[in-house]
């Protein structure tokens, strides 16, 4: 990409969301529908609610739980994925369990979670981790078994130790796909943060959104959704940076595919 295209891209990256926001503003300006308040009201509520009154009381605890759950999911997903990816037998044995658990809707999981891990923060972390782990696990497995045969054989021939094989060959080779899983998981984590706060909560963004919804405080609800979107955007930005560093080789090796 030339420098000019780059500038154009950055311009568009800013302009398109701004345009869409403007569109929302205009379209909702005269809205009388109860559930679709004007963007102006939402933004006013947003300012009153989130800047910065509830940051300490709701945003921070929510994010703490979310990161804890996400982190557990990453560790379990990547480690489990590498191991399952390497052993066909393990994969076969685990398949029915994994696929079964993966299909359980998180709200249906809540009773069990309450029973086993209680009603505190750990229950929410459990629920977040439980759902986020699957995209990471699947992508890691698929990344590992999709590693080019010649690369596999190369490690084999040079008698690379199991540890190196795992950490220095399989992990980087699968990393583009692992990142795809991470990106899916991180937005799931935000979603699950909300779902996990459906019960046994006294604070949190999800708690706020659901309470607002239940008490028909619709602009407040939208302001919470807006905040979730912003958080998602920021988290994604962090990921883009991480990826830029970690997958530099991949971008290079795949360079012309994007031109």
């Amino acid at each position, binding site marked *: 990409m030339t420098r000019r295209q780059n500038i154009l891209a950055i311009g568009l990256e800013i302009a398109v969301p701004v345009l869409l926001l403007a569109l929302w503003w205009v379209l909702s300006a005269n809205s009388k529908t109860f559930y679709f308040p004007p963007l102006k009201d939402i933004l006013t509520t947003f300012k009153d609610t989130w800047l910065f009154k509830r940051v300490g009381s709701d945003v921070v605890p929510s994010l703490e739980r979310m990161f804890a759950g996400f982190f557990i999911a990453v560790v379990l997903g990547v480690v489990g994925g590498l191991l399952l990816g390497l052993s066909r037998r393990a994969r076969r044995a685990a398949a029915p369990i994994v696929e079964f658990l993966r299909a359980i809707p998180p709200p249906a999981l809540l009773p069990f979670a309450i029973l086993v891990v209680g009603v505190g923060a750990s229950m929410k972390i459990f629920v977040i981790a439980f759902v986020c782990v699957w995209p990471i696990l699947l992508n890691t497995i698929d990344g590992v078994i999709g590693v*080019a045969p*010649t*690369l596999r*054989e*190369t490690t*084999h*021939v*040079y*008698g*690379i*130790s199991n540890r*190196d094989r795992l950490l*220095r*060959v399989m992990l*980087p*080779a699968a*990393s583009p796909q692992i990142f795809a899983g991470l990106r899916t998981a991180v937005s799931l984590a935000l979603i699950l943060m909300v779902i996990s706060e459906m019960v046994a909560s006294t604070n949190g963004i999800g708690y706020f959104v659901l309470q607002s919804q239940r008490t028909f405080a619709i602009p407040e609800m939208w302001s919470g959704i807006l905040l979730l979107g912003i958080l998602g955007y920021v988290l994604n930005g962090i990921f883009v940076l991480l990826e830029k560093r970690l997958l530099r*080789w*991949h971008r*290079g*090796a795949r*360079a012309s595919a994007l031109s």
Partner: protein
Amino acid sequence: MLRVEHLKKTYGEDDQAVEAIGDIGFEVNENEFVCVVGPSGCGKTTLLKCMSGLLEPTSGEVRLHDQVIDGPPEKMALVFQEYSRSLFPWMSVRQNVAFPLRRKSLGKDEAKGLVESAVRSVDLDGVLDRFPWELSGGMQQRVAIARALAYQPEILLMDEPFASVDAQTRADLEDLILNVRKEYGVTVVFVTHDIDESVYLGNRIVVLTKSPTTVQELLDVNLPDERDQVETKELPEFARLRAHVYRSIKRKQPEAEPSTT
């Protein structure tokens, strides 16, 4: 030291089966340089993969020091025909070459020395910190060679390792391998399409037939041990051997295509 016995390899099963190797047997002695030649698709790569324990033979076996090989032996290195796919794209040239050395308990300086001298010997010291995908085909192939050399194997299997380098570099690399063999007593099995090269390098040449593949001929090369790109190739014996191999390969030529049973 390395013995191939009634080796047979079939890919796939039942009606999809492809017989890559029919029945191959030969022996490689310590410190010998064996060249393998044969028509395209006759099973040379398959043979090397079986010899290195990467592929399990359908029947027959490969023995190293009388032990059946069932996985890559420690002291063996293989340079793949698909060199560009055997380099790790997330590692720089230096890291690629150094990677197999992690297994050996070498001092940091020693490993670094090995890597740099291997890379220098293939004339790539200018690109140590570049990534494989920033290199030309021939350069990538040389990285793969450097990696095998730095590993200091006792047995070196090479699958058309000089296919993508220019004539001059090729000659240099040929002499490099001869040198390595002499200096460190390495045993080499070398697949090539270049008949001149096989005669120039080998102590012995294994000529394979078309598929179903067997050994067409085992040819001893009685050229003086000290080889020279100009002088050796001017020897009448060189010309004779070369013509012989050429004819030997041709003899079975009018056969049918690899049978797709």
